[in-house]
């Protein structure tokens, strides 16, 4: 508890620096390339095209969902996944990447995952706006359900910021952990119903297990806004599971942080 209060205090005290570093992190990701900022769009666009091509043209599995074309269903899941993917890879490496903040100056380590997360979130928001435009352009204008988008955005942000707090510290201690997370990414992607519809599963208990997966919950949440037209309070049980998982992870992250905070500067260079 004491550690949590400390972390919050550090965040408040360093709020200006966190925003500056988040901005710097975005700038750094896209600068130094000839096409610069457009990479933020091109990379996801290529990925979306590949999956769309594979499912719709290749596997002929691209059925309409709830009256929406498969393409729209696909992007409403892939775009939140891009943020998740960034957090799983770059978020996990955050403390290593910003080791100079740890070993060369006095700086609160707990805020490193936060500003990296904010930076990725900004890119995510831009992509969401573009997605909104695509929906509208294809004849599916905004609905009242879109207003719960900030709610799911917040859940997504909290979940992955808490996750990277422990994963970035553990990966700073040992590269093994970073490799472990990266090797899990493909598994998480394919098991979480991002590119296939989890509703098509006929086995009840299996579906339930998959639904407890927080990544599935978040992706389905985005689709609640865009596709399913469902309110978050219509699925209280799922929300409860999600909150329980977040709280458990928070406790775990804080425990890790307390154990490692003083050791991290000794092992990084």
């Amino acid at each position, binding site marked *: 508890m004491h550690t949590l209060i400390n972390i919050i205090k550090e965040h408040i005290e360093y709020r200006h*620096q966190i925003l*500056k570093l988040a901005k710097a992190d975005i700038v750094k990701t896209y600068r130094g390339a000839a096409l610069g900022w457009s990479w933020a769009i091109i990379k996801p666009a290529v990925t979306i095209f590949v999956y769309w091509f594979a499912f719709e043209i290749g596997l002929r599995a691209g059925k309409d969902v709830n009256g929406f074309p498969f393409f729209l269903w696909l992007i409403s899941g892939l775009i939140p996944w891009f943020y998740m993917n960034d957090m799983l890879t770059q978020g996990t490496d955050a403390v290593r990447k910003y080791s100079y903040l740890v070993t*060369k*100056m006095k700086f609160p380590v707990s805020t490193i995952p936060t500003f990296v997360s904010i930076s990725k979130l900004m890119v995510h928001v831009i992509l969401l706006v573009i997605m909104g435009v695509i929906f509208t352009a294809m004849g599916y204008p905004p609905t009242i359900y879109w207003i719960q988008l900030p709610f799911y955005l917040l859940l997504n942000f909290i979940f992955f910021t808490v996750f990277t707090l422990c994963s970035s510290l553990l990966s700073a*201690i040992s590269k*093994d952990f970073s490799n472990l997370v990266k090797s899990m990414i493909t598994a998480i992607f394919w098991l979480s119903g991002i590119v296939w519809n989890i509703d098509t599963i006929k086995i009840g208990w299996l579906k339930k297990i998959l639904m407890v997966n927080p990544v599935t919950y978040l992706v389905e949440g985005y689709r609640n806004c865009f596709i399913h037209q469902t309110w978050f309070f219509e699925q209280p049980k799922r929300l409860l599971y999600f909150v329980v998982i977040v709280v458990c992870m928070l406790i775990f992250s804080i425990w890790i942080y307390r154990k490692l905070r003083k050791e991290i*500067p000794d092992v990084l260079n």
Partner: protein
Amino acid sequence: MKNNETVIKFSHVTKTYKLFKNDKKRLLSVFFKNMKCKKKKAVNDVTFEVKRGEAVAIFGKNGAGKSTILKIITGVCFPTEGELEINGRVSALLELTSGFDPEFTGRENIYLKGQLMGIKDKEIRELEQSIIDFAELEEYIDQPVRTYSSGMKARLGFSISVNIRPEIFIVDEALSVGDEEFKNKCIKKVNEIISDEDVTLLFVTHATVVAKEFCTRGLLMKEGKLIFDGDIDTAIEKYEKTYKK
């Protein structure tokens, strides 16, 4: 002037490094208590006080624990046991060539560093020109730091640290970089800073001649222990004696 105020206080500070066979063992030790590791005391039960305005040199062979002490003062690393108290803005020159974001230009790094130290943009803007002038980087200031030579990085690092008006100024072997001319300029600048009565200087070096120029007090470290604390001349004498053995 509050000249008798203590700005740095170490009481029985010990820093133990845990040495594991490999990183895997280190990772496992987070979850399991009984992982074996060797323990090395880099700083062993050190107690001393520094008052505002003092200029203190720390001597010792490589691995004597000098840099660890400076890191503890900077707030970068934490003591395993003991207590410490620090009052004032610490500006540290720990390994000058690092601590920059290589993707950013020199100018952006000036702002970034300043912001991270909690200095307002307006104040940085006022200091910007003097930092650039002092570092003698000229048109390179708008190039990414990754293109800098180590000498250029060191000059920029030194220039930032001396120009942000520190209260506690820490120099770790910094003056050994750069050519003779720049070195003299640095020495002059450090002298200028510490002529202000409120600035405390901590100086780690092997160059006893330079230390003598600034410092009035010397600490001598050996294998993590503080073995002498007193006036600079005696400290240098003792230090040179241990070296010859």
